[in-house]
């Protein structure tokens, strides 16, 4: 299983803050996971589509498209940060 988290505008646009997901067949990276979620269509496609400025963390560390994703990982999607 994967633990997926969504923050800030993404959480609002997707209407969900967290979910558990069985690791989809063939998904081994952040890019693969994102493509899987975009394939859900609707808000998922428009919110997570390529070209949107979004950030991904795997196990609470900033990640890139090629970062590996595997069973038990916590993967978070969120907009560029605006604290401070």
């Amino acid at each position, binding site marked *: 299983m994967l633990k997926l988290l969504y923050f800030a505008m993404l959480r609002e646009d997707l209407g969900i803050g967290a979910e558990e997901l069985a690791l989809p067949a063939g998904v081994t990276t952040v890019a693969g996971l994102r493509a899987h979620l975009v394939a859900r269509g609707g808000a998922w496609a428009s919110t997570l589509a390529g070209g949107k400025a979004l950030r991904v963390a795997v196990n609470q560390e900033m990640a890139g498209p090629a970062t590996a994703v595997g069973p038990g990982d916590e993967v978070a999607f969120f907009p560029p*940060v605006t604290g401070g």
Partner: protein
Amino acid sequence: MPTIRVQTEDFDAGAEIAQIRAGNPRVGAVASFVGTCRDTNDGDAVAAMTLEHYPGMTEKALAQIVDEAIARWRVLDVTVVHRVGELKPGDQIVLVVVSGAHRGEAFAACEFLMDYLKTRAPFWKKEQTPAGARWVEARASDDEAAARWVAGTKDAA
């Protein structure tokens, strides 16, 4: 030992400055920064804001940024306090305090911490304006401020 706190409560900058100096006569310089909630942003009135964060990752990200500052400059100690939740104009948002033997390192580390925190720590601001609520957009100027430290243009500081 660095102090890092993420909290809804307000903080006392004076108490944190006193604390970082307490009992350490090697301290010659304490640079600090308080970020506060303004009543306008991008030309619009802001009545209130909500600060959301990523519990767990926030503390980890702040600890990494603080470790980086301590490794890069020979500072003695660092305190970072960042508030989350509902804030009003005039409220304090963030505090960074850095102690060192000399002022150059303390100033540089303090500014570096703020620049990195602004681009790397998972906090998001949502503002209440007369036109409704809106998520604050990340600023290119913040990315540029953080990039200065990579380019090394401030290493002489």
